[in-house]
């Protein structure tokens, strides 16, 4: 075997080894890498009990009730729904039907939020196109 082939095999082993290590590492920490839990995850008991965690889902249509800076709304994944209570400034993208991620903890079935983040989707279009799409759906 020439020196060059030797080095080639070493480099291949190096890359293969790191890939395997990364794969195993990511697999082991998979749960921790989830940024949020869906309402169904929470119902299934996957979210940490009594501790603060992140809940993600869509803001249910017609559920937003504002009272000064206090706001209450429902977060749903179209299977399960939780009511979220929050006090503070909401991000620009917060609206009904929008995906959001909120940090807080469950108290008697109500999610008391300390932070509300809006999740943006991958769709970009001008307002006229969005209106046209909406009308087409109706």
């Amino acid at each position, binding site marked *: 075997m020439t020196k060059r082939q030797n080095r*080639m095999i070493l*480099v291949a082993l190096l890359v293969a080894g790191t890939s395997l290590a990364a794969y195993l590492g990511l697999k082991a920490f998979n749960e921790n*890498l*989830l940024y949020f839990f869906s309402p169904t995850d929470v119902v299934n008991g996957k979210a940490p009990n009594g501790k603060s965690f992140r809940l993600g889902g869509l803001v249910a249509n017609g559920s937003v009730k504002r009272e000064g800076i206090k706001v209450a709304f429902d977060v749903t994944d179209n299977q399960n729904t939780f009511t979220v209570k929050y006090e503070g*400034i909401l991000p620009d993208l*917060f609206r009904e039907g929008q995906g959001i991620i909120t940090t807080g903890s469950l108290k008697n079935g109500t999610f008391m939020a300390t932070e509300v983040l809006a999740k943006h*989707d*991958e769709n*970009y*279009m001008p307002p006229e196109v969005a209106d046209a799409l909406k009308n087409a759906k109706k």
Partner: protein
Amino acid sequence: MWKWIQAFASPQNFYRISGTLIPWFLYPFVFLVTIGLYWGLYVAPIDYQQGDSYRIIFIHVPSAWMSMMIYLIMAISAGIGLIWQIKLASVVAKVSAPIGAGFTFLALITGSIWGKPMWGTWWVWDARLTSELILLFLYLAYMSLNNAFDNPKKAAKASSILALVGIINLPIIHYSVKWWNTLHQGASISSMDKIAAPAIHPDMLWPLLIMAIAFKLMYAALVLQRGRDEILFNEQNMRWVKDLIKGGER
């Protein structure tokens, strides 16, 4: 074939050819970046949800693409330098690192500026943002390791191994939004099922692609120029460099 590659990749030859190539990348870059910015910032329509704020994608997305592409080029060059001991490959890897780090930084900063008004936070530790930050650290680690040795051969060897190890981060960055729940949105264009029908309107897609091409031209021009400088420095005691300086030739 092998002889031809070796002759072509000789530092002296690279110096000569890169000199003529640079304007062919530099001027198209200036041209395209002007068009891309004008189109993206003035002509393109506003977004139905984000209004004008989405326009940061014309910098953010091409920068993020570049940050990953440059790392791939850097790692492959480092591997070639390691296996075939081609000096030019190690030079390309070395001079690419700061450019890649710059683009990574730009992607992180512009994303953060956009994230504050849109998401409601500057930064979150979700899989996409964290893996992109790790990419920046990989670049910085590569650069410091390369500078830590007095012997350029040892420096190239050690840092090349680091570059190759770090390549595993690239698929993680790319698929992070698919494998895990993240705050960062999914891919609008680059995922396979979206190439036919991107989730971004054509009026916004075109300036984005123009910016992406412009950034690639900029990288090409930068890598050639920085490569020339690096080669002149490395070969300062060689005959051809002394002749070059004596002749007063550029």
